[in-house]
């Protein structure tokens, strides 16, 4: 039982953090919004060069072959900095599909380009124009399309960093490259992975939102002292810190279970996502409140992160879906203490 990160993992994460700190600033994110082009091709290139995009891709496909626990640390930082490019999706969805299916690996010849993945839990296509291929996960089939041949309708997300397209796949094979059948277990695996990915983004976002609120309350004065010295403000942020703290281990355990094909991986992923949703919700609410009316403006950076939380809470498993899933699982097999429920 060693529930700590290796030095290598931390070094890799910290190096990536340094990159993000100077390359994914709120100003740069806003300029992507203003240009109506949140996907910065140059940055995508840099992420490739840094090895981030291929971090968990099998070595035989030119990746670094790192595990998802490490990826989880990277994705958390992507959340923290609100990286607009879908590197988190590349790692947890399309790289995973390639790693797990030789058939898919064969069809994806451009593994560093963005491959958008959709499913009923995340039905709108992310960055269609920036993707080379599109993988649509059905109930038990997987279809691969050429993105350029898909002709959908643009949707406006409340997070301007998310470029979304609506497309009805039924009865259309425009751009269809191939459909693989009998893929139920792989689809299930990717959905589980999507839960962990979105949980990691939410935890990163939550940490950032709390940091912004803390800094603001030190800076902002009211009635002659920093508002951070009022007990009510302290306690609302302390409670936020508690929620974040108690989401983290659940997240890393879920990533670990994915890596190790733990039979309870989906349950663990659902737990991680639910904890992350609840944490992000409370952190957002309390941090907004600590900001007073300023938090409500477009000008403060706070909303960049809060908006992103609204989206990631819902995609790849939302509250109701996760809660119902977990309750069903628990009813089928009531957890017993000291058995193998928490860890194998």
């Amino acid at each position, binding site marked *: 039982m060693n529930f700590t990160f290796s030095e290598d993992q931390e070094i890799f994460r910290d190096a990536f953090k340094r990159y993000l700190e100077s390359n994914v600033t709120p100003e740069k994110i806003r300029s992507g919004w203003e240009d109506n082009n949140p996907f910065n091709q140059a940055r995508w290139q840099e992420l490739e060069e840094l090895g981030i995009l291929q971090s968990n891709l099998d070595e035989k496909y030119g990746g670094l072959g790192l595990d998802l626990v490490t990826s989880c640390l990277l994705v958390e930082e992507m959340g923290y900095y609100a990286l607009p490019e879908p590197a988190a999706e590349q790692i947890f969805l399309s790289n995973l599909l390639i790693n797990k299916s030789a058939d898919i690996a064969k069809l994806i010849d451009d593994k560093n380009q963005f491959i958008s993945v959709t499913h009923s839990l995340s039905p709108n296509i992310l960055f269609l124009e920036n993707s080379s291929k599109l993988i649509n996960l059905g109930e038990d089939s997987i279809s691969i399309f050429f993105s350029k041949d898909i002709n959908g309708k643009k949707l406006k997300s409340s997070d301007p960093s998310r470029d979304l397209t609506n497309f009805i796949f039924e009865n259309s094979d425009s751009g269809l490259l191939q459909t693989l059948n009998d893929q139920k277990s792989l689809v299930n695996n990717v959905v589980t992975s999507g839960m962990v990915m979105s949980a990691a983004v939410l935890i990163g976002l939550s940490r950032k939102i709390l940091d912004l609120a803390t800094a603001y309350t030190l800076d902002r004065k009211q009635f002659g002292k920093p508002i951070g010295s009022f007990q009510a403000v302290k306690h609302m942020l302390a409670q936020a810190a508690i929620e974040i703290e108690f989401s983290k281990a659940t997240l890393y355990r879920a990533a670990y279970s994915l890596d190790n094909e733990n039979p309870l991986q989906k349950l663990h992923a659902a737990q991680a996502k639910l904890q992350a949703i609840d944490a992000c919700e409370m952190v957002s609410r309390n941090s907004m409140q600590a900001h007073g009316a300023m938090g409500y*403006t477009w000008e403060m950076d706070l909303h960049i992160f809060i908006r992103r939380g*609204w989206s990631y809470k819902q995609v790849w498993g939302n509250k109701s879906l996760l809660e*119902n899933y977990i309750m069903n699982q628990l009813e089928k097999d009531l957890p017993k203490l000291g058995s193998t429920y928490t860890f194998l």
Partner: protein
Amino acid sequence: MKIGFSDSQKKFREEIREWLEKNVPKIPLNSFDTKEGFEEHREWEKKLNSGNWSMVTWPEQYGGRGLNLIEWLIFEEEYYRAKAPARVNQNGVFLLGPTLMEYGSDKQKEKFLSAMATGEHIWSQGWSEPGAGSDMAAIRTTAFKKGDKYIINGQKTWSSRAAFADWTFGLFRSDPESDRHRGLSFILVPLDAEGVTVRPIPQLDGEPGFAEIYFDDVEVDVSNLLGGEGEGWSIAMATAGFERGLMLRSPARFQETASKLLSLYFKNKDNLSGSIESKVLQSWLRAEAYALNIYQTASKLMAGKKIGPESSLGKVFWSDLDHQMHQTALDILGVSSELEEVVADDVASWIKGYMFSYSGPIYAGTNEIQKNIIAERLLGMPR
């Protein structure tokens, strides 16, 4: 105790229901925080006025209907039920209007009241200043008298509707020697005056619900002073009084949201979890509890009782409720809840309402300030 509606109240309800059914625009107006929507809403104010429905709580002599509180609650229920447009001139109707009636000169009443009722003048409010969020007595914008003019210098912020409004009202420091709440005057300022610069503040939904107003040697005529010089604070306090606060937070607004939430829930029930069910139920219960409390409070006021710091109880209650209802709706909408422009299931309006709900616990005195007031003034705990 006799609760329920009288025949004349029921008749009144029918009358307004009928008028609204005929007149409420079938297609929702654009947001009044856009230039286009602002003018559409100005038109709606005019239309309301044509039916004598724009200033229902004003006395008849000023073009109102002199509705009492209960009738006003009925009016509001019907207004929300009909999904009629939001009131772009709320600042005028509920804040400045009654203040003018009480403190204004005949000339001021004549000049401003009917222009307010027709939507010709849309008012913004100018209370807050940078660095004086919840601490309104820290006002620094000056209005020094020079002959028959006040010369205004300084900056107001969080001025609601100011992006497109015609006028603003607020407190200005007219006595250079004064501090805190002494030496303040209540002055009306046309926003097209020379030296006025309005800088909209885009909010979460990207639209300028608020603005900063900069005053650079702005001259206004002394006739724009309301009440006496230096009496601004007490006039402003009256403006912020309970009944008006109540009117800005109609229980019908929350009941309408709760009803919509229930429909949304039952439509999607099979996929929803216990936590959602619980929040939906709580929402409806609390919206009803709020309405019942307000009816009771209205009855007390009509029976001549006074309401003081009790209003802080309601502020915390409805603002928490409003946020929870919208949050729950988005959780039901799931992956659609980020799609700002989707009309189906009212997605767009849930999203807009959600963003707005973040401001409830903040504006008009943060909920933290309200809880201090409750503890200190209602429960008698030490400062």
